[in-house]
């Protein structure tokens, strides 16, 4: 059934990867209590391409940290592949991040003194994969983002776009359930940014689930679904017309 769904690209009806119900997050900042999320519910299915948008202070970053299992909600329910994340301890969260989530950061966050290959290998080390296998998988991931010839280059020998592609290779090397990209083009010029979004599109076409966090409407337009946040609540959740047209194409 599932394969049929995928082949038809009827994503909203596929198996859900992420299901959050009425989550809230409160911070204490000095004397003040900040309600970053005031009750957000969201369901993300396999092979969705979703953009989370919102102005600063909307709770966008907080939601991203929740989705990325970097933080746990104050209240509410968060299920990742059917597992309750809200009550996991540090080590269990680390495990989920390692196996299920591929992070792409605005600032790339590569280890400056390690080669592309070593950077991409990092999540595999934490997964306990043996060195030979590690290298093979990392090389394969770099190939996928078109950097087969830059494996032994260090970050300072690469352009911004290449660095981000290394970061993307690192995000997908462990074959995670979702790729979580936080302003992936924020530090790039628009041309390079376009190239990165093309890579994202390819990954999506190959069946990856992508969550894109951005404040730029241009970037968000690449996604098939857009969630707008405002003041800690979901303001809108739309499937873009592009998806419908694509759906029309693929079903015809």
């Amino acid at each position, binding site marked *: 059934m599932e394969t049929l769904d995928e082949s038809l690209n009827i994503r909203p009806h596929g198996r859900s990867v992420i299901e959050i119900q009425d989550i809230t997050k409160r911070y204490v900042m000095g004397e003040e209590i900040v309600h970053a999320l005031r009750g957000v519910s969201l369901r993300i299915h396999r092979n969705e391409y979703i953009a989370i948008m919102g102005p600063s202070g909307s709770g966008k970053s907080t939601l991203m*940290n929740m989705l*990325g299992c*970097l*933080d746990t909600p104050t209240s509410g329910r968060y299920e990742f592949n059917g597992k309750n994340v809200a009550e996991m301890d*540090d*080590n269990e969260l*680390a*495990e989920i*991040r*390692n*196996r299920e989530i591929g*992070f792409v*950061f605005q600032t790339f*966050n590569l*280890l400056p*003194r*390690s080669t592309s290959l070593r950077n991409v290998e*990092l*999540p595999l*080390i*934490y*997964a*306990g*994969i*043996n*060195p030979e296998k590690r290298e093979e998988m990392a090389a394969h991931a770099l190939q996928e983002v078109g950097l087969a010839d830059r494996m032994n280059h260090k970050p300072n020998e690469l352009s911004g776009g290449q660095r981000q592609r290394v970061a993307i290779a*690192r995000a997908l090397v462990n074959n995670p359930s979702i790729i979580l990209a936080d302003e992936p083009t924020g530090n790039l010029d628009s041309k390079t940014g376009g190239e990165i979004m093309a890579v994202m599109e390819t990954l999506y076409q190959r069946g990856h689930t992508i969550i894109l966090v951005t404040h730029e409407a241009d970037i968000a337009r690449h996604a098939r679904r857009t969630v707008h946040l405002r003041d800690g609540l979901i303001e809108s959740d739309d499937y873009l017309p592009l998806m419908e047209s694509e759906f029309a194409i693929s079903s015809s």
Partner: protein
Amino acid sequence: MRRFVYEISESWKIAAAQMRSNMMRSTLTALGVIIGIVAVTLMGTAISGISIGFDKSMAIFGDDVLYVGQWPWKQVDDWWNYRDRKKIKTEYAEPINRMIVATPKSNLTVAVPTSSVYRSVKYGNGEVNNVLVRGTVSDYVITSTFDFKEGRFFNELESRGGANVCVVGYDVANALFPSASPLDKSVLINGQPFKVIGVISRQGTFLGLFSLDSIVVMPLPAFQKYFTAKSEADILVKVKDKTKLAEAKDELVGIMRRVRGLSPEKKEDFSINEQQALKSTLDPIKNSIAIAGLFITGLSLFVGAIGIMNITFVSVKERTKEIGTRKALGARRRTILLQFLIESTALCLLGGFIGLTLAFLMCFLIGVGFPSFPVHFSTDLVLVSMIVSVLTGLIAGFAPAWTASRLDPVAALRYE
């Protein structure tokens, strides 16, 4: 388990890369540990050198010989009780030996009388002052631990007859006969000629205080003929089985009481001394020197450790964002803790290794330059220094590594 191994090997690689890329900083920090390890190691070599010297000095007395004397070999608070004791006489040896022979299963072998004074020894124009001149019997050689460089000890015949022969110590022989053999030459003591029949091999000093080689040994009758004034007598008694030293001592006490004619209610007016008792009075002194020395030099290592701790804190601070990234990619708390612990340990090991090399070179140079200075470099010391280095690294690195492992990934990722 396998993951743990990969994490450790990864951590070592990171540590090496970190040291390479912060060469200056790492070297300066390691310098603190280097100095600490050099200080502690040199102190260790000195202590083991002193200890070896101490044991060597103690061995002079023999571990199977009892010494009957007026004074005990220990600090006494009531010295006036000992001062007025009757002198020990060389003549006691004879009745003691008789009683040893008469006792079946005696734990004692033989009693040897000795009597000593300090005199000058001359040969030609040469003169050596303050030489220990000792009169004894031929059995003395049984109770002693020395070897002969040349010649022999006097025999029983010469011993009884009181022949004017003597055996000289290494220093005496060297001073009076720098180029020729002293054998069959006659040295003058108190104006009396004594023919040299043997030279004792070098024995060194006693606890570095006085030379054991500045000695002349002669037959007791000859000694008594010329050097009666101010001489001090001791009786040396050899024990049959040194594992039964206590029984032997008790037996000797009984014999001495009979020799002295003490009634049962009277206290002993003599002391039976042995190496072990002397050792146990001197050991605490030796140990407190060792502890004080290690404590003081340990302080320099402590300062080095503080340097390591500081630099690891800096490293954690600088790499907060990297820690956040690693956590996002799946590093657990344990992983991060290990990474920084290994980093500080690697730095300490490097310092320890360099420090040990330096200490080894210094020991070697001291050994060449000042042979009498007691330093002793051992493999145990290498092992101990390395363990100390690792422990220093682990202890110094723990607080910063713990801080790093507890960082909130969100805050760490946001850190600029």
